[in-house]
């Protein structure tokens, strides 16, 4: 794997799960600066679980995680975020009883006070739909609007390493494309590291540089995105797809 960027996040031999029962077993992955790394897999494969282990929401049963070659295995969620991680969870990604502005301020919790207004404006620029909703409570917004807010919130801190768990869920097609092709791709271009989970597999692989296929809690493939995209049998082999499904993967 010589062509990969210098690793920013390195996870080795991760096992994590719920009530001491591992769901994800022995997964190793790395994300380098300037890279977009995609994890794909069927429902229930353990993608979100893997991500929660990386953010620290779930305690590790086994394995180590390092960020910028420093071991962060023992750190709590808040400390990991303080080291430049950002996270958009799949579910529960906004503070429902806070307004849009307050949500964004929380996203920029660790920023200096005077930086916040600037960042808010910058982030709202990327999601114009939120502009008119500054004082709206998050729980009284539409599904897609909430998702946008969730992403915007995570962008506030301008994280060096961003984790997105199905960020395009509930988003209208052009917004989804905007998120992946403009925002995420732009982040990578500017030297950030991105770990992305997507069900819009083809679209994700298009922008990604590296991809992992996770099924049943274990890594099955670890290839460059181009290689994965070229594998015509990717869907049938690893994602349990029928022929029809596999074609839809490519012409999405």
């Amino acid at each position, binding site marked *: 794997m010589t062509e990969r960027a210098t690793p920013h996040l390195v996870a080795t031999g991760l096992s994590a799960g719920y009530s001491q029962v591992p769901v994800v077993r022995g997964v190793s992955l790395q994300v380098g600066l300037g890279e977009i790394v995609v994890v794909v897999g*069927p*429902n*229930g*494969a353990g993608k979100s679980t893997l991500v929660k282990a990386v953010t620290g929401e779930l305690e590790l049963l086994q394995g180590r995680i390092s960020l910028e070659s420093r071991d962060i295995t023992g750190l709590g969620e808040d400390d990991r975020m303080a080291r430049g991680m950002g996270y958009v969870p799949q579910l529960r990604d906004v503070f429902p009883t806070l307004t849009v502005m307050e949500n964004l301020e929380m996203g920029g919790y660790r920023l200096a006070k005077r930086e916040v207004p600037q960042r808010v404006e910058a982030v709202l620029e990327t999601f114009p739909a939120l502009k008119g909703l500054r004082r709206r409570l998050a729980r009284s917004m539409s599904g897609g609007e909430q998702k946008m807010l969730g992403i915007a919130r995570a962008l506030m801190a301008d994280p060096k390493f961003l984790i997105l768990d199905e960020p395009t869920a509930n988003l209208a097609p052009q917004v989804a494309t905007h998120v992946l092709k403009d925002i995420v791709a732009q982040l990578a271009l500017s030297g950030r590291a991105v770990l992305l989970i997507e069900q819009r597999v083809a679209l994700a692989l298009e922008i990604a540089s590296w991809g992992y296929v996770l*099924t*049943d809690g274990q890594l099955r493939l670890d290839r460059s995105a181009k290689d994965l995209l070229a594998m015509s049998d990717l869907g049938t082999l*690893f994602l*349990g797809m029928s022929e029809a499904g596999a074609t839809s993967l490519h012409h999405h």
Partner: protein
Amino acid sequence: MEGGSDVGAWSFYITTLLVYFVVDALSAFSLNLQFGYAGVVNFGFIVFQAAGAYVAAVVTLGPSGGQASFQQYILGSHLPFPLELLAATLAGAVLSLVVGLFALRRMRRDYQAAVLLIVSLIALQVVSADVPLFNGSNGLTGVTWPFGQLFGATATGSPFLYLGYAAIIGLLVCLGVIWLSRSPWGRSLRAMRDHEDAASAMGLNITSLRLQVFVLGGAIAGLSGGLLVEYIGAWSPGAWGYAETFVIFTAIFVGGVGNYRGVLVGTLLVPIIFLEIPRFLPAVGYPGLTDSLEWVVVGLAWMLCLLFRPRGIIPERRLKASLHGSPREPAPAEGSA
């Protein structure tokens, strides 16, 4: 020495505890149906038991002598068995219907709990202050049990018979509760507990379901009150402070919410063992110190139980689909390759 320790005294003591166990088990089952299944946090539970107790008392005490007699009450009459227990059951049901109509409105569950707690306080104050109702804070005395003419006037005079009588009623009702909660109706209750909007979008009438379970629970509470008052022969506001509701709740938590075997164990542990064992502690310090410390011990035991068994001694069991009348064995868990 006649009054001293002998087999008789011990067996009376144990019998009393067993009668209480039956009454508490009824309460705990009914509360578990309401809380564990339907998610209704009935912090006013004891009021419905009290309603049953008062009604069972007054319908057997005979007409009240009014202000001139040493106790005044309403509804005085001489109902024979089993009408007095039916009246008690009905009292619990009717009162819970009335309370349920406003307290079960759509609101956050913890608010609802607090509202019902307040109902409990209001009821206690009204009954204490309003003497003509149920003789105010002095309460009612002289209640006998239905088979008094046959076996001796007071239930404590023939405790074993009373235990048998209570146990049969208790057993039947508890089995009924178990059966109901395993039925599709019980499952609807759990659906309502977990997601009201989804449940109603599937055609469940939330308002009616909640009221059903509240009234059913209230009826059982009333019955348990009737059984209790016929045994101890007296009933007064001192017997139904809101703390009594918490004792039953704790029994459920300690035993295991949603699991009737757990609930039974909890009922045995909390009201009986937690609250009785400290009576055996040796006296220390000034008079009263031991009794205060007893409660400290009860509180600590309570907390330790919740700490070491957060899901209860026998936690709620997952109802495995294969056990559920399905002809098919569920496929073993496999990857989706």
